[in-house]
């Protein structure tokens, strides 16, 4: 019994440690500069928006990266899906919820398409995703003739940003994701394929549909991210020549953090906490008005340091170089 309590304690501690630490540090830094971390409502919104979008992006990235599928295209999916939904809604004058739904649908379809291309051409995912990213960026540009979409004046759509809405997104996203991957046949087969591709397939698990579904889900998630990004300012800026992959990089730190926290609790919750951690950091940057170049360096340092720490426990290599080692073994 005692040991059991100990374990539970250890778990809670391990789970909460990182975000708590991040929060404290951020708090200290801010108060040192005499700034209140959460002053305006805007700060709260920023925090939860960051948390929500980063969490979803992390899901989308990790979901394929765990099975060694590196996906450069998630950024472009979020871009294109938001362009599609925004254009439809602005032209038909639809309100927020339909726009969200259309975004998700569009994202899912786009994801599925890239999944299909992947299973049809059977090229290494990283290559396919490069092509797809270019393609979707181009498509988004073509659809809007480069104008992007602007609905700043559409107060209905731009009224979406609010703490409540973002919290709802986080909760639903998390629940659905956990349900899909921990409580369904698909989820179990996904796990089997991740660590034992060959065996799983020989046993008769269908990899192709599973993979396609993975891409579809990732796409849907990115659809939401696109929606969040679009509604925050009411404008969608175009990007070409891989301008869209930036989104992906926001997910690495939370993914590794999640991977770490995953030892103490459900990995998905880990991702959420990772996202929250990065949200704290972003908020601090905003509050302390940190210069962009400093931000980049600091973030990079945090990433590296965290990885160095992790690697002594040998967790990340597995996560990231999965692909490479798998290749060697299976080919």
């Amino acid at each position: 019994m005692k040991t059991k309590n100990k374990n539970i304690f250890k778990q809670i501690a391990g789970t909460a440690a990182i975000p708590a630490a991040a929060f404290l540090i951020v708090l200290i830094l801010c108060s040192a500069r005499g700034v209140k971390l959460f002053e305006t409502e805007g700060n709260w919104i920023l925090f939860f928006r960051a948390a929500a979008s980063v969490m979803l992006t992390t899901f989308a990235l990790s979901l394929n990266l765990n099975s060694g599928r590196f996906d450069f295209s998630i950024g472009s999916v979020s871009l294109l899906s938001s362009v599609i939904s925004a254009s439809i809604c602005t032209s038909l004058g639809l309100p927020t919820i339909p726009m969200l739904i259309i975004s998700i649908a569009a994202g899912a379809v786009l994801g599925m398409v890239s999944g299909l291309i992947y299973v049809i051409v059977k090229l290494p995912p990283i290559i396919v995703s490069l092509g797809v990213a270019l393609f979707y960026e181009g498509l988004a540009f073509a659809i809007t003739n480069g104008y992007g979409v602007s609905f700043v004046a559409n107060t209905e759509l731009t009224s979406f940003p609010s703490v409540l809405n973002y919290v709802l997104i986080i909760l639903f996203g998390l629940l659905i994701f956990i349900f899909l991957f921990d409580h369904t046949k698909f989820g179990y087969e996904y796990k089997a394929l991740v660590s034992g591709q060959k065996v799983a397939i020989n046993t008769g698990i269908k990899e192709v549909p599973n993979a396609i579904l993975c891409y579809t889900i990732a796409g849907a998630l990115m659809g939401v991210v696109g929606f969040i990004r679009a509604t925050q300012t009411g404008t969608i800026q175009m990007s070409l020549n891989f301008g869209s992959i930036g989104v992906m990089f926001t997910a690495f730190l939370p993914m590794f953090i999640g991977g770490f926290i995953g030892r103490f609790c459900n990995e998905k919750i880990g991702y959420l906490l990772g996202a929250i951690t990065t949200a704290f950091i972003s908020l601090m940057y905003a509050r302390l008005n940190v210069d962009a170049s400093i931000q980049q360096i600091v973030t990079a340092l945090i990433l590296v340091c965290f990885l160095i720490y992790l690697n002594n426990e040998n967790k990340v290599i597995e996560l990231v170089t999965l692909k490479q080692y798998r290749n060697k073994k299976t080919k």
Partner: protein
Amino acid sequence: MKNSKIKKYIMNLTPLLGLAVLFAAFLILGTVQDINISYGLKSILSQSVVVAVVATGAIFIYTLGSFDISLGASTAVSALIGGIVYNKTESLLVMTLVCIGVAVLVGLFNSVLASVFNLPVFVTTIAMLSVLNALVLVLIKVNGTGSQIAVPAAAVRSLNNTTFKMVVLLIFVLLCIFVFSFTKIGRMQKFLGGNPVCAKLSGISEKKMAIIAFVMSGIGVGLGAFLSIVYAPTLTRNTASSVGMDVIIAIVFGGMPVSGGARSKIYAAVIGAFSMTLLSQIMVMFNLNSGIGQMVKAAIFILVVFLATSGQRGKMLPR
């Protein structure tokens, strides 16, 4: 056996064929729209050369089955520092050496960091990417007008001609081919890329090889930086910003397997680089808007790589 062998052989040539086809297309369309073909070819060469050089160096990293997305940023940084140094010393030689030196240092930092803390190299390059990007801004701010660092155009104009660039490229490619195919190092790298576990048990040190690979690619990046100064002596915060991804595209387009290993080949980089430039030149002739142009590019990219590798399809989905 025979016929499958021939097929494989053709597969290996696909990128080359791709290049040939694009080239033909360029000539034909060119004559139809009577454009200035000879000038076009010249400019294609000089436009591709930076990516070609950087990509050639990068092959060493790809051979290990790992990859580096900070190449573009590191090209920019080396170029900027090179520019600063030139404005201080007025010596092209020093500038060139500095470019290479900086790039090699960045590569070393990447790989040593990775090997000391045994991180996957790829991750360190992600971090390195944002560090370098930040560095670009800082450098321009402290050492330039704030918007740019400019090397006097007159200083490099003499070098800004196709022949010179091609010579540089050729020399570097030959160097790489030598190291890759005629030295122990190249063999070890390929083997390591093919199977790290077995390589370790054959006395090959992954860390050493990674470091060597990053040094080689560093040299490529350095030369690339030098050449981009020669091509456009005014350096801004976006200098070489596209190089990073272009390199990846070029390498893959040239028929280099992302998993590295025995099938790796140096010339893939060059073929890829030239193909991509040709392709965009052809796009221009269709006068497509940027979006459509990019879509077509993407489709052709996938198609060519697909044909080039359709020799090796397994029952399982590749990872």
